[in-house]
């Protein structure tokens, strides 16, 4: 189907974009890479949107080294995240996530900020930034504010972003020497949304486990994390299965997703340890 937009404006800077969102009076939609928004508009899940195109705002793009942290501009495209040397070295989970996101032509235009603001529970970046315990930086009519990834994802396609606000950047602590970050998922076709996916970080202070496609939001598996810190992989898999409540749909049943989550945890641990799951 064809998209039915109510209007379009190309923002010249962030304050212009915020002004236009305010003017749109509730119908405003931020257009970045458009790879989810335009698809939703084409399916008429959304009509009459007043599109505020921020895709040309160069100040919102790129990765910078902030000492202990990396700062990733919200408009940084998937393809650029995938090949960025800072990301490869200090947030390899994100580079690995890019390999699983859709297809090359979509990665050429999609942006990390767009993916996070869209908050598809089956998408890789939301789970990855939750696993990384990243911070999201948001600008609105009253100034800027920061939100922890753990507080950002509220429900399916729903985030802490309020009407009239724009996600500006993401910051995350740099990966330490000897830290491991891996992502495992199972999809029916390469580039499709995963039936289930799992991010695992092992650092000296402990483990982080976040899952995608097993709930309404990306899920931080605190039980599995604690079990990995002190116990065995078997205990972590058992803990994981009690703390996720995945949906059943036409792609996979809840019990199959639960099973997959355990398999993925074993695979992720095995990859870090260099053995076979």
């Amino acid at each position, binding site marked *: 189907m064809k998209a039915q937009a109510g209007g379009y404006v190309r923002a010249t800077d962030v304050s212009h974009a915020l002004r236009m969102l305010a003017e749109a009076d509730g119908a405003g939609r931020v257009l970045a890479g458009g*790879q989810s928004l335009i698809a939703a508009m084409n399916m008429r899940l959304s009509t009459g949107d007043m599109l505020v195109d921020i*895709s040309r705002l160069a100040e919102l793009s790129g990765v910078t080294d902030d000492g202990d942290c990396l700062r990733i501009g919200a408009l940084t495209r998937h393809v650029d995240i995938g090949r960025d040397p800072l990301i490869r070295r200090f947030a390899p989970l994100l580079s690995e996530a890019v390999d699983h996101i859709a297809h090359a032509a979509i990665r050429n235009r999609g942006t990390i900020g767009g993916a996070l603001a869209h908050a598809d529970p089956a998408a890789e970046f939301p789970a990855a930034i939750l696993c990384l315990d990243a911070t999201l930086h948001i600008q609105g009519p009253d100034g800027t504010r920061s939100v922890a990834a753990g507080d950002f994802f509220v429900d399916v396609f729903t985030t802490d972003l309020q009407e009239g606000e724009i996600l500006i950047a993401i910051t995350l602590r740099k990966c330490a020497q000897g830290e491991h970050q891996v992502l495992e998922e199972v999809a029916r076709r390469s580039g499709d949304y995963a039936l289930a996916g799992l991010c695992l970080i092992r650092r000296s202070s402990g483990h982080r486990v976040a899952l995608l496609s097993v709930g309404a939001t990306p899920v931080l598996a605190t039980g599995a994390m604690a079990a990995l810190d002190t116990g065995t992989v078997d205990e972590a898999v058992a803990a994981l299965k009690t703390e996720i409540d995945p949906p059943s749909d036409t792609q996979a049943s809840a019990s199959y997703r639960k099973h997959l989550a355990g398999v993925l945890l074993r695979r992720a641990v095995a990859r870090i340890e260099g053995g076979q799951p």
Partner: protein
Amino acid sequence: MSDSFRAKVDIALTVNGEPVEARVPAGRHLIDFLRLDLGLTGAHASCEHGVCGACTVRVDGDAVRGCLTLAAQLDGSEVWTVEGLSDTAEIRVLQDAFVARNALQCGFCTPGMLVAAQELLHRRPIPDRAAIREHLSGNYCRCTGYEAIVDAVEDTLRKCADEDMA
């Protein structure tokens, strides 16, 4: 233009090397702008939600989905379709390999396949078959003639690499 919402947007861009000025509805897809407004029917509109890849064209150097891009977004951009890439002979070697390998049946997916495959031509080291398949995984062939398409792309990559060495 930048001060208020417009239902119709003025754009100036180049398409296949030619300057184009147009006024497009805000929701006009790039693929429909190319096909319906400019008569460039090489790339196809098909699934219209980014899954099939038939609408793949090149925007500012990158292969993108014509159905997930609005014409209104492209003021100042450089767009190339299969027609332009054919006229400049940029993808001649790929097209010759598609013919030699009979890498098409109905031909519907071919323009998108060519634009997507072209992105691999400059990649070094040469991708193996699995990587070619992975790269083309966003382009459906409804006749399911994938084997010959991968053969053609692999032939082309080998040929280009040999020419680089020569």
